[in-house]
Protein backbone atom coordinates (compact mmCIF):
# COMPACT_ATOMS: atom_id res chain seq x y z
CA UNK A 1 0.00 0.00 0.00
CA UNK A 2 1.22 3.47 -0.89
CA UNK A 3 2.88 5.87 -0.50
CA UNK A 4 5.51 3.50 -1.89
CA UNK A 5 8.58 5.30 -0.59
CA UNK A 6 7.15 6.09 2.85
CA UNK A 7 6.14 2.47 3.41
CA UNK A 8 9.57 1.22 2.24
CA UNK A 9 8.05 -0.70 -0.64
CA UNK A 10 10.55 0.99 -2.94
CA UNK A 11 13.95 2.37 -1.96
CA UNK A 12 14.67 6.07 -2.05
CA UNK A 13 16.90 5.51 -5.10
CA UNK A 14 14.02 3.91 -6.97
CA UNK A 15 11.92 6.80 -5.78
CA UNK A 16 14.34 9.29 -7.33
CA UNK A 17 14.41 7.29 -10.54
CA UNK A 18 10.60 7.33 -10.72
CA UNK A 19 10.65 11.08 -10.04
CA UNK A 20 13.10 11.43 -12.92
CA UNK A 21 10.84 9.47 -15.30
CA UNK A 22 7.73 11.36 -14.16
CA UNK A 23 9.63 14.65 -14.52
CA UNK A 24 10.50 13.85 -18.12
CA UNK A 25 6.87 12.95 -18.74
CA UNK A 26 5.76 16.22 -17.13
CA UNK A 27 8.15 18.25 -19.29
CA UNK A 28 7.03 16.41 -22.39
CA UNK A 29 3.37 17.11 -21.70
CA UNK A 30 4.11 20.78 -20.97
CA UNK A 31 5.92 21.10 -24.29
CA UNK A 32 3.17 19.29 -26.17
CA UNK A 33 0.57 21.64 -24.64
CA UNK A 34 2.53 24.54 -26.10
CA UNK A 35 3.66 25.83 -22.72
CA UNK A 36 7.14 26.44 -24.00
CA UNK A 37 5.77 29.54 -25.74
CA UNK A 38 5.70 32.60 -23.52
CA UNK A 39 2.89 34.03 -25.65
CA UNK A 40 0.67 31.12 -24.74
CA UNK A 41 1.24 31.70 -21.04
CA UNK A 42 0.75 35.45 -21.32
CA UNK A 43 -2.48 34.70 -23.17
CA UNK A 44 -4.01 33.63 -19.87
CA UNK A 45 -3.76 37.20 -18.63
CA UNK A 46 -5.05 38.81 -21.82
CA UNK A 47 -7.81 36.27 -22.30
CA UNK A 48 -6.98 35.04 -25.79
CA UNK A 49 -5.67 31.65 -24.68
CA UNK A 50 -6.82 29.95 -21.49
CA UNK A 51 -5.11 26.61 -22.07
CA UNK A 52 -2.79 27.09 -19.08
CA UNK A 53 -5.71 27.30 -16.72
CA UNK A 54 -7.41 24.35 -18.37
CA UNK A 55 -4.34 22.11 -18.28
CA UNK A 56 -3.38 22.83 -14.70
CA UNK A 57 -6.91 22.53 -13.38
CA UNK A 58 -7.43 19.29 -15.29
CA UNK A 59 -4.16 18.02 -13.84
CA UNK A 60 -5.12 19.02 -10.31
CA UNK A 61 -8.62 17.60 -10.50
CA UNK A 62 -7.37 14.35 -12.06
CA UNK A 63 -4.72 13.90 -9.37
CA UNK A 64 -7.25 14.70 -6.64
CA UNK A 65 -9.81 12.19 -7.91
CA UNK A 66 -7.06 9.65 -8.52
CA UNK A 67 -5.76 9.90 -4.97
CA UNK A 68 -9.26 9.71 -3.50
CA UNK A 69 -10.07 6.60 -5.56
CA UNK A 70 -6.71 5.04 -4.66
CA UNK A 71 -7.53 5.69 -1.03
CA UNK A 72 -10.99 4.19 -1.53
CA UNK A 73 -9.45 1.02 -2.99
CA UNK A 74 -6.92 0.89 -0.16
CA UNK A 75 -3.95 1.51 -2.46
CA UNK A 76 -2.68 4.63 -0.76
CA UNK A 77 -2.87 5.91 2.80
CA UNK A 78 -3.77 9.59 2.55
CA UNK A 79 -2.62 10.22 6.12
CA UNK A 80 0.93 9.48 5.01
CA UNK A 81 0.82 11.71 1.95
CA UNK A 82 2.83 14.87 2.54
CA UNK A 83 0.71 18.01 2.77
CA UNK A 84 2.58 21.24 2.26
CA UNK A 85 2.29 23.46 5.33
CA UNK A 86 0.35 26.66 4.76
CA UNK A 87 1.97 30.01 5.52
CA UNK A 88 -0.89 32.30 4.65
CA UNK A 89 0.79 35.72 4.59
CA UNK A 90 3.90 34.61 2.76
CA UNK A 91 1.81 32.55 0.33
CA UNK A 92 -0.25 35.61 -0.64
CA UNK A 93 2.78 37.86 -1.11
CA UNK A 94 4.78 35.14 -2.84
CA UNK A 95 1.81 34.47 -5.11
CA UNK A 96 1.68 38.14 -6.12
CA UNK A 97 5.44 38.19 -6.84
CA UNK A 98 5.21 34.99 -8.85
CA UNK A 99 2.13 36.23 -10.72
CA UNK A 100 3.88 39.47 -11.66
CA UNK A 101 6.90 37.50 -12.88
CA UNK A 102 4.58 35.21 -14.78
CA UNK A 103 2.99 38.10 -16.75
CA UNK A 104 6.29 39.91 -17.37
CA UNK A 105 8.36 36.87 -18.26
CA UNK A 106 5.72 34.70 -19.83
CA UNK A 107 7.00 31.59 -18.06
CA UNK A 108 6.63 29.78 -14.81
CA UNK A 109 9.70 27.94 -13.46
CA UNK A 110 8.66 24.61 -15.00
CA UNK A 111 7.80 25.93 -18.42
CA UNK A 112 10.95 28.07 -18.60
CA UNK A 113 13.10 24.93 -18.41
CA UNK A 114 10.78 23.36 -20.94
CA UNK A 115 11.32 26.31 -23.29
CA UNK A 116 15.07 26.32 -22.68
CA UNK A 117 15.20 22.61 -23.52
CA UNK A 118 13.91 23.29 -27.04
CA UNK A 119 16.29 26.23 -27.39
CA UNK A 120 14.17 29.29 -26.72
CA UNK A 121 16.30 32.31 -25.88
CA UNK A 122 13.64 34.13 -23.82
CA UNK A 123 13.26 31.00 -21.66
CA UNK A 124 17.02 30.91 -21.02
CA UNK A 125 17.02 34.59 -20.02
CA UNK A 126 14.07 33.82 -17.74
CA UNK A 127 16.11 31.06 -16.05
CA UNK A 128 18.97 33.51 -15.46
CA UNK A 129 16.48 35.86 -13.83
CA UNK A 130 15.09 32.97 -11.82
CA UNK A 131 18.54 32.21 -10.41
CA UNK A 132 19.17 35.88 -9.62
CA UNK A 133 15.92 35.79 -7.64
CA UNK A 134 16.97 32.59 -5.86
CA UNK A 135 20.34 34.10 -4.84
CA UNK A 136 18.69 37.36 -3.83
CA UNK A 137 16.31 35.48 -1.54
CA UNK A 138 18.95 33.13 -0.16
CA UNK A 139 21.46 35.83 0.74
CA UNK A 140 18.74 38.18 1.97
CA UNK A 141 17.12 35.46 4.04
CA UNK A 142 17.62 37.28 7.39
CA UNK A 143 15.57 40.18 5.97
CA UNK A 144 12.79 37.93 4.67
CA UNK A 145 12.72 35.42 7.51
CA UNK A 146 9.84 37.00 9.47
CA UNK A 147 7.73 37.31 6.35
CA UNK A 148 8.72 33.82 5.17
CA UNK A 149 7.44 32.22 8.34
CA UNK A 150 4.39 34.41 8.95
CA UNK A 151 0.84 33.11 8.96
CA UNK A 152 1.82 29.52 9.78
CA UNK A 153 -1.31 27.37 9.76
CA UNK A 154 0.32 23.94 9.70
CA UNK A 155 -0.45 21.20 7.20
CA UNK A 156 -4.04 22.05 6.51
CA UNK A 157 -6.53 20.87 3.95
CA UNK A 158 -9.35 23.17 2.84
CA UNK A 159 -11.83 20.37 3.45
CA UNK A 160 -10.70 20.28 7.10
CA UNK A 161 -11.11 24.05 7.51
CA UNK A 162 -14.69 23.91 6.26
CA UNK A 163 -15.43 20.64 8.06
CA UNK A 164 -16.36 18.90 4.82
CA UNK A 165 -15.53 15.36 3.81
CA UNK A 166 -12.73 15.02 1.25
CA UNK A 167 -15.18 13.58 -1.26
CA UNK A 168 -17.67 16.45 -0.92
CA UNK A 169 -14.91 19.01 -1.31
CA UNK A 170 -13.66 17.15 -4.40
CA UNK A 171 -17.12 17.35 -5.95
CA UNK A 172 -17.30 21.10 -5.26
CA UNK A 173 -13.84 21.66 -6.74
CA UNK A 174 -14.69 19.63 -9.85
CA UNK A 175 -17.85 21.69 -10.37
CA UNK A 176 -15.84 24.92 -9.91
CA UNK A 177 -13.16 23.70 -12.35
CA UNK A 178 -15.73 22.74 -14.96
CA UNK A 179 -17.41 26.11 -14.52
CA UNK A 180 -14.06 27.77 -15.14
CA UNK A 181 -13.54 25.67 -18.28
CA UNK A 182 -16.81 26.92 -19.74
CA UNK A 183 -16.06 30.50 -18.71
CA UNK A 184 -12.62 30.30 -20.34
CA UNK A 185 -14.18 29.00 -23.57
CA UNK A 186 -16.38 32.07 -23.53
CA UNK A 187 -13.44 34.39 -22.71
CA UNK A 188 -11.42 32.98 -25.61
CA UNK A 189 -14.27 33.79 -27.97
CA UNK A 190 -14.60 37.29 -26.55
CA UNK A 191 -10.89 38.21 -26.78
CA UNK A 192 -9.73 36.37 -29.88
CA UNK A 193 -6.27 36.84 -31.36
CA UNK A 194 -5.40 35.32 -34.70
CA UNK A 195 -1.68 34.75 -34.51
CA UNK A 196 0.59 34.47 -31.53
Amino acid sequence: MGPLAVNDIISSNTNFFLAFVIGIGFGFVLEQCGFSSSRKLAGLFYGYDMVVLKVFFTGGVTAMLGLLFFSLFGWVDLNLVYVNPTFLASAIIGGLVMGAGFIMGGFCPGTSFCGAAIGKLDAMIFIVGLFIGVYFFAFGYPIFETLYKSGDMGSLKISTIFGLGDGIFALILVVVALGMFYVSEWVEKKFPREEY
Partner: protein
Amino acid sequence: MKPLHYLTLVLLILALIIALVPENTTRPYKLTADQLLAEIRTGTQFVSPDEVADKIIQKDPSIQLIDVRNPREFDMYSLPGAINIPLQDILSENNYDVLNQGTKMNIFYSNGATEANEAWLLTRQLGYQNNYVLQGGLNYWMETILNPSQPGSIAANDEIARYDFRKAASMALGGGAVSAIVPASDQGASKPKPGVVPVKKKKKASGGC
Protein backbone atom coordinates in the same frame (compact mmCIF):
# COMPACT_ATOMS: atom_id res chain seq x y z
CA MET B 1 -20.08 16.11 -28.63
CA LYS B 2 -17.12 18.38 -27.91
CA PRO B 3 -14.14 17.12 -25.88
CA LEU B 4 -15.07 19.52 -23.09
CA HIS B 5 -18.47 17.88 -22.80
CA TYR B 6 -16.87 14.44 -22.49
CA LEU B 7 -14.54 15.79 -19.83
CA THR B 8 -17.46 17.35 -17.96
CA LEU B 9 -19.37 14.11 -17.99
CA VAL B 10 -16.47 11.92 -16.86
CA LEU B 11 -15.26 14.27 -14.11
CA LEU B 12 -18.75 14.86 -12.76
CA ILE B 13 -19.54 11.15 -12.57
CA LEU B 14 -16.24 10.36 -10.83
CA ALA B 15 -16.62 13.28 -8.41
CA LEU B 16 -20.19 12.24 -7.60
CA ILE B 17 -19.01 8.71 -6.83
CA ILE B 18 -16.21 9.91 -4.61
CA ALA B 19 -18.53 12.34 -2.81
CA LEU B 20 -21.12 9.66 -2.10
CA VAL B 21 -18.96 6.74 -0.96
CA PRO B 22 -17.81 6.72 2.65
CA GLU B 23 -14.14 7.33 3.27
CA ASN B 24 -11.97 4.23 3.29
CA THR B 25 -10.72 3.63 6.80
CA THR B 26 -9.24 0.17 6.37
CA ARG B 27 -5.67 1.19 7.00
CA PRO B 28 -3.39 -1.27 8.80
CA TYR B 29 -2.20 1.40 11.21
CA LYS B 30 -4.88 3.82 12.28
CA LEU B 31 -2.59 6.13 14.21
CA THR B 32 0.47 7.87 12.89
CA ALA B 33 3.67 7.76 14.92
CA ASP B 34 3.06 11.37 15.99
CA GLN B 35 -0.43 10.64 17.27
CA LEU B 36 0.78 7.58 19.13
CA LEU B 37 3.63 9.53 20.69
CA ALA B 38 1.17 12.17 21.86
CA GLU B 39 -0.98 9.49 23.52
CA ILE B 40 2.03 7.88 25.17
CA ARG B 41 3.12 11.22 26.55
CA THR B 42 -0.24 11.96 28.11
CA GLY B 43 -0.35 8.44 29.62
CA THR B 44 -4.14 8.19 29.39
CA GLN B 45 -3.88 4.42 28.96
CA PHE B 46 -2.96 3.88 32.63
CA VAL B 47 -5.58 2.91 35.18
CA SER B 48 -4.63 3.15 38.84
CA PRO B 49 -4.68 -0.02 41.00
CA ASP B 50 -7.27 1.63 43.28
CA GLU B 51 -9.66 2.12 40.40
CA VAL B 52 -9.18 -1.45 39.24
CA ALA B 53 -9.59 -2.83 42.78
CA ASP B 54 -12.80 -0.88 43.18
CA LYS B 55 -14.18 -2.23 39.93
CA ILE B 56 -13.22 -5.80 40.78
CA ILE B 57 -14.85 -5.62 44.21
CA GLN B 58 -17.98 -4.08 42.78
CA LYS B 59 -18.00 -6.83 40.17
CA ASP B 60 -18.26 -4.12 37.54
CA PRO B 61 -19.36 -5.97 34.38
CA SER B 62 -17.83 -3.33 32.12
CA ILE B 63 -14.22 -4.29 32.76
CA GLN B 64 -12.24 -7.16 31.33
CA LEU B 65 -8.87 -7.85 32.91
CA ILE B 66 -6.39 -9.32 30.45
CA ASP B 67 -3.27 -11.05 31.73
CA VAL B 68 -0.54 -10.80 29.09
CA ARG B 69 1.97 -12.98 30.96
CA ASN B 70 2.59 -16.59 29.91
CA PRO B 71 0.03 -19.27 30.86
CA ARG B 72 2.26 -20.74 33.57
CA GLU B 73 2.43 -17.46 35.44
CA PHE B 74 -1.28 -16.94 34.85
CA ASP B 75 -2.05 -20.30 36.50
CA MET B 76 0.07 -19.46 39.52
CA TYR B 77 -1.64 -16.15 40.21
CA SER B 78 -4.10 -13.96 38.41
CA LEU B 79 -6.51 -11.22 39.28
CA PRO B 80 -10.17 -12.23 39.74
CA GLY B 81 -12.03 -12.50 36.44
CA ALA B 82 -8.92 -12.08 34.31
CA ILE B 83 -8.43 -13.91 31.03
CA ASN B 84 -5.03 -14.91 29.69
CA ILE B 85 -3.80 -13.53 26.35
CA PRO B 86 -0.01 -13.95 26.32
CA LEU B 87 1.77 -11.10 24.57
CA GLN B 88 2.90 -13.32 21.69
CA ASP B 89 -0.76 -14.14 20.91
CA ILE B 90 -1.94 -10.53 20.98
CA LEU B 91 -2.23 -10.32 17.18
CA SER B 92 -3.85 -13.74 16.86
CA GLU B 93 -7.22 -13.69 15.11
CA ASN B 94 -8.86 -15.57 17.97
CA ASN B 95 -8.35 -12.58 20.23
CA TYR B 96 -9.52 -9.94 17.76
CA ASP B 97 -13.07 -9.81 19.10
CA VAL B 98 -11.87 -9.35 22.66
CA LEU B 99 -9.35 -6.62 21.88
CA ASN B 100 -11.27 -4.62 19.28
CA GLN B 101 -14.70 -3.93 20.69
CA GLY B 102 -16.70 -0.94 21.84
CA THR B 103 -18.40 -2.06 25.05
CA LYS B 104 -15.92 -3.29 27.64
CA MET B 105 -12.92 -1.64 29.20
CA ASN B 106 -9.98 -3.97 28.65
CA ILE B 107 -7.21 -3.64 31.22
CA PHE B 108 -3.90 -5.27 30.38
CA TYR B 109 -1.60 -6.30 33.18
CA SER B 110 1.73 -8.06 33.53
CA ASN B 111 4.27 -8.29 36.34
CA GLY B 112 5.65 -4.85 35.72
CA ALA B 113 3.89 -2.46 33.37
CA THR B 114 6.19 -3.05 30.39
CA GLU B 115 4.57 -6.05 28.71
CA ALA B 116 1.08 -4.73 29.32
CA ASN B 117 2.11 -1.41 27.84
CA GLU B 118 3.54 -3.18 24.81
CA ALA B 119 0.23 -4.94 24.33
CA TRP B 120 -1.56 -1.63 24.58
CA LEU B 121 0.84 0.00 22.11
CA LEU B 122 0.25 -2.72 19.52
CA THR B 123 -3.51 -2.67 19.82
CA ARG B 124 -3.64 1.12 19.94
CA GLN B 125 -1.64 1.45 16.76
CA LEU B 126 -4.16 -0.83 15.08
CA GLY B 127 -6.79 1.69 16.15
CA TYR B 128 -8.50 -0.47 18.78
CA GLN B 129 -10.35 1.47 21.44
CA ASN B 130 -11.07 0.80 25.11
CA ASN B 131 -7.77 -0.86 25.96
CA TYR B 132 -5.96 0.23 29.13
CA VAL B 133 -2.98 -0.72 31.25
CA LEU B 134 -2.87 -1.46 34.96
CA GLN B 135 -0.48 1.13 36.31
CA GLY B 136 2.69 -0.44 37.68
CA GLY B 137 1.52 -3.97 36.94
CA LEU B 138 1.12 -6.74 39.50
CA ASN B 139 4.19 -5.66 41.47
CA TYR B 140 2.66 -2.29 42.20
CA TRP B 141 -0.66 -3.99 42.80
CA MET B 142 0.91 -6.11 45.56
CA GLU B 143 2.53 -3.08 47.05
CA THR B 144 -0.49 -0.79 47.05
CA ILE B 145 -3.57 -2.98 47.25
CA LEU B 146 -2.57 -6.24 48.89
CA ASN B 147 0.00 -4.85 51.33
CA PRO B 148 -0.73 -1.16 51.69
CA SER B 149 1.61 0.75 53.96
CA GLN B 150 -0.01 2.89 56.58
CA PRO B 151 0.42 6.62 56.13
CA GLY B 152 1.96 8.62 59.00
CA SER B 153 -0.27 10.25 61.60
CA ILE B 154 0.14 13.68 60.01
CA ALA B 155 -0.80 12.44 56.54
CA ALA B 156 -3.44 14.31 54.57
CA ASN B 157 -7.03 13.18 54.89
CA ASP B 158 -7.25 11.83 51.39
CA GLU B 159 -4.15 9.78 51.94
CA ILE B 160 -5.68 8.17 54.99
CA ALA B 161 -8.90 7.62 53.11
CA ARG B 162 -6.97 5.94 50.34
CA TYR B 163 -5.24 3.74 52.87
CA ASP B 164 -8.57 2.75 54.36
CA PHE B 165 -9.85 1.83 50.97
CA ARG B 166 -6.77 -0.21 50.14
CA LYS B 167 -7.00 -2.05 53.44
CA ALA B 168 -10.59 -2.95 52.73
CA ALA B 169 -9.77 -3.91 49.16
CA SER B 170 -6.93 -6.04 50.36
CA MET B 171 -9.29 -7.98 52.60
CA ALA B 172 -11.83 -8.43 49.87
CA LEU B 173 -9.20 -9.56 47.40
CA GLY B 174 -7.37 -11.88 49.76
CA GLY B 175 -4.36 -9.79 50.67
CA GLY B 176 -1.84 -10.71 53.33
CA ALA B 177 -0.56 -8.71 56.22
CA VAL B 178 -3.34 -6.26 56.80
CA SER B 179 -4.36 -7.29 60.30
CA ALA B 180 -0.76 -7.28 61.43
CA ILE B 181 -0.23 -3.73 60.27
CA VAL B 182 -3.26 -2.24 61.98
CA PRO B 183 -2.39 -1.15 65.53
CA ALA B 184 -4.76 -2.09 68.33
CA SER B 185 -5.68 1.52 69.06
CA ASP B 186 -6.98 2.03 65.54
CA GLN B 187 -9.42 -0.84 65.71
CA GLY B 188 -13.04 0.09 65.66
CA ALA B 189 -12.28 3.64 64.66
CA SER B 190 -11.13 3.30 61.10
CA LYS B 191 -11.05 -0.36 60.25
CA PRO B 192 -13.83 -1.13 57.81
CA LYS B 193 -15.50 -4.47 58.02
CA PRO B 194 -14.52 -6.95 55.32
CA GLY B 195 -16.91 -6.84 52.43
CA VAL B 196 -18.11 -3.34 53.20
CA VAL B 197 -16.42 -1.33 50.56
CA PRO B 198 -16.09 2.39 51.22
CA VAL B 199 -16.91 3.41 47.70
CA LYS B 200 -17.25 7.11 48.43
CA LYS B 201 -13.87 7.30 50.07
CA LYS B 202 -12.37 5.75 46.99
CA LYS B 203 -13.81 8.46 44.81
CA LYS B 204 -12.08 11.14 46.78
CA ALA B 205 -8.83 9.29 46.74
CA SER B 206 -8.75 8.49 43.08
CA GLY B 207 -6.87 11.62 42.17
CA GLY B 208 -3.97 10.77 44.42
CA CYS B 209 -1.94 8.49 42.26
